[in-house]
């Protein structure tokens, strides 16, 4: 088995209206990881997922899941046989009851886990006889997650599974997910806007913006590398030009120059001290700050 559950290389997608959804996206999702896939609305997250599952055809590059080419129709069926998917819209058959859609889905998967079905029906408290269209948003999300988790899948692809959930449902879903991964070693590819939740459960992340990867790697490494260097001067902060690579963005506000860096924080601090700074502090960044600064820098660079 490949070291990576998902690999994309220079993946491109231009829709018929000329919109560039993916512009050379390169990703590597380690097998067995919980991979947070982050980006603003319209960054290309859903398009990436659709390409991986054979729902959308890329216009260039390569996408592989379990080492299989996602663009090959036969391989795509094999990929989906090993993949559980929850779409952003929690797209299900409204006319079926909960029981019917569970039976319907189970019939496609010889690996269907009846033990999980029992567990999650109880945990999520899903009413068997209720029509899917009558379910609340939270219930619908839980049902979609049950259908994905019980497939006995090697990979879970979850597109905004936590959007619109109340805090209690959010916690239920997160707990179920973490427990499932701990028990089964499934790879989870989780697209979300909920940075706090990703921060809580992911071990790898990628941030994408306008169809390109701008940050990617193990979350701990990313946290270790990214730093905010706060530099205070006697008078107004000068427009310093740093030689050290890795600077994402700088911001000057009165006497304070703030530098956001994806590496080389100590060297940047040393440069600042040699420029007569009166105080230099190197501070860690939260995932939210890393996300915002990286995306802002990407927008700035693009413009």
């Amino acid at each position, binding site marked *: 088995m490949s070291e990576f559950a998902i690999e994309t290389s220079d993946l491109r997608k231009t829709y018929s209206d000329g919109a560039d959804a993916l512009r050379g996206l390169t990703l590597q999702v380690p097998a067995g990881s919980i991979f947070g896939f982050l980006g603003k609305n319209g960054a290309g997250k859903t398009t990436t997922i659709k390409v991986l599952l054979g729902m959308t055809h890329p216009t260039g590059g390569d996408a592989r899941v379990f080492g299989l080419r996602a663009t090959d129709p036969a391989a795509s069926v094999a990929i*989906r046989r090993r*993949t559980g998917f929850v779409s952003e819209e929690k797209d299900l058959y409204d006319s079926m009851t909960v029981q019917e859609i569970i039976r319907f889905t189970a019939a496609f998967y010889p690996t269907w886990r009846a033990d999980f079905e029992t567990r999650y029906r109880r945990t999520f408290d899903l009413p068997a006889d209720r029509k899917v269209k009558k379910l609340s948003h939270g219930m619908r999300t839980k049902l979609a997650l049950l259908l994905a988790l019980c497939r006995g899948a090697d990979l879970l692809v979850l597109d905004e599974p936590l959007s619109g959930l109340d805090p209690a449902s959010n916690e239920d879903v997160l707990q179920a997910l973490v427990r499932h991964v701990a028990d089964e070693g499934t790879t989870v590819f989780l697209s979300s806007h909920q940075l706090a939740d990703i921060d809580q459960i992911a071990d790898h992340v990628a941030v994408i913006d306008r169809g390109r990867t701008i940050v990617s790697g193990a979350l701990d490494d990313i946290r270790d590398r990214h730093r905010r260097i706060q530099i205070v001067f006697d008078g107004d902060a000068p427009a310093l030009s740093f030689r050290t690579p890795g600077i994402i963005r700088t911001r000057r506000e009165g006497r304070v120059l703030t530098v956001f860096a994806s590496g080389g924080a100590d060297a940047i601090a040393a440069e600042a001290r040699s420029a007569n700074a009166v105080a230099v502090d190197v501070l860690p960044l939260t995932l939210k700050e890393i996300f915002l600064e990286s995306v802002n820098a990407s927008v700035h660079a693009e413009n």
Partner: protein
Amino acid sequence: MVWYKSWLDTRWRFLIGFAILLVLAAGVIVNYSVSATLLPGLANQPVDTSTTAGRLLAEMIQLEQTYRGFVWGQWWRQNLLQDATLFAVLLGSGGAISSSKGGLFTLSMPASRTDWLTARAATGLGEFFILAMVPSLLIPLLSPLIGQHYSVVDVFAHGLCIFVAAAVFYSLAFLLSTMFSDIWRPLLIAIAVACVIGYLEVIFQLNGVFKVMAARRYFESGSLPWLGLTSSAAVSVALLYGASVNVARKDF
């Protein structure tokens, strides 16, 4: 389960169509029992055949002097022809993989687009075949009740013509459903196309799809309109192939 999904998608249209056609087929028997007393008198009435309407009326009166002619004129050439066109379009609309409701869920299953499309096309065609054949069997079944006889062979021959020719409209609606995300546009466009074709065939006396459906040649001489049937089948296959190409390259 791919087939089951196709059945779920079409079952109400099929079952409602089946019930309506059963009632209408039984209605032919009831109509004849009422008309039989009036028809001999009508045969002697002068009709102005210089207009299209007058010519059709005269032909109808002439046809209905026999039970077989009455059934052909009322059922095969009129009621079933129109209703079969409507139900062909209804069954073909909606497509295999909806772009809106449940489409992504369908596509996340381990089945190819071809599997979904084939199952949906075959299920709809199978249901339409039943609609074209089975309700009409009520006519030979009930005819003895009014002292008449109608051949089962005629039912199968006319049913075959209706099925093969109206499958063109089924296939057109099926193709249109791969181009539009809603059910209404394919439905309305296919019905509009059928109306235009029907109108042109009547006005210009063309040999088109509705002529094949009515199968006058079989009624008059007992031989099936093979050229029309073959052409209709070829058009249907081409439209269904177009649908499969559309679905294969479509982005959801």
